């Protein structure tokens, strides 16, 4: 039972991988555990590390190599995912504490700025949206009692609606560019760290 539990936990941590890649990893370690004659979770963890740690090592290897091979894939989701994977890899690798702290601070600031931008854009979009809806409703309601005022408010409303669409599109573009820049910077930093550790193979 313990072996199955370990492998199941490992599988759950490998969800970012494609199904066949995940199956490949699971097959490899299933066979490995059998051949090493490990039975309890403790024995397996002593050799391979916790499922989470093993998954992080595997994922880090996949993500870095994948981005080295196809640097043109730049969907926002991919970028956010990449930053996350690299963060996990940095946390899992043995680097000096001050460096880790500096990196953590840097990323905390970066993420904070990004969230602030998100909130600001969201508020702007919402505000413009609300103004447009209310103006159009107000304009329509007075259209028959005062035609000119009605037309004016409907016009204001439509303009605000246009602004809403523009702001949201522009906002999406800005966030996309920010995320792209963040991913590039993260990749660059990670490569520096790797060069720093001279691409050594993690030994015990």
């Amino acid at each position, binding site marked *: 039972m313990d072996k199955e539990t370990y492998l199941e936990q490992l599988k759950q941590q490998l969800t970012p991988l494609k199904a066949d890649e995940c199956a490949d*990893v699971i097959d*490899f370690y299933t066979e490995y555990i059998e051949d090493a004659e490990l039975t309890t979770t403790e024995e397996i963890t002593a050799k391979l590390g916790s499922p989470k*740690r093993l998954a992080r090592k595997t994922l880090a290897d996949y993500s870095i190599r994948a981005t080295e091979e196809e640097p043109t894939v730049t969907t926002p989701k991919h970028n956010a995912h990449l930053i996350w994977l690299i963060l996990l890899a940095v946390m899992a690798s043995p680097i000096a504490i001050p460096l880790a702290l500096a990196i953590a601070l840097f990323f905390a600031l970066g993420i904070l700025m990004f969230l602030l931008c998100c909130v600001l854009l969201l508020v702007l979009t919402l505000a413009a949206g609300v103004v447009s809806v209310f103006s159009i409703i107000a304009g329509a309601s007075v259209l028959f009692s005062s035609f000119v005022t009605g037309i004016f408010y409907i016009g204001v409303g439509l303009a605000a609606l246009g602004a809403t669409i523009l702001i949201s599109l522009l906002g999406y573009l800005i966030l996309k560019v920010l995320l792209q820049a963040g991913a590039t910077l993260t990749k660059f930093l990670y490569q520096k760290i790797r060069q720093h550790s001279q691409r050594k193979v993690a030994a015990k």
Partner: protein
Amino acid sequence: MKIQVSTELLDGCVLALLAEKDYYGYAITQRIQQTIPISESTLYPVLRRLHKESWLETYDESFKGRNRRYYRLTKAGTKQLGVIRNDWESYKHNIDWLLKGDNHG
């Protein structure tokens, strides 16, 4: 041993093992660990990379009612092993030259 083995050297070690005979995953780790201290989770990424470069191929054999995946060197792999051996020879020569201090005279 404090000296870390680079990925290129580890690639070479695995290819050299497979040049002797075909191995399955666990046996490769065991053989390498007899000489250099690699962690148990090091080998999978190495094998994956070598496979992707087509330097080795895999085939499955049943063993005690389960599957066992064997790794076999390809022609390209043999060639690559030659490249790594050459690189290592010159690298080794250069490091010896620096380390052994017979470069002062």
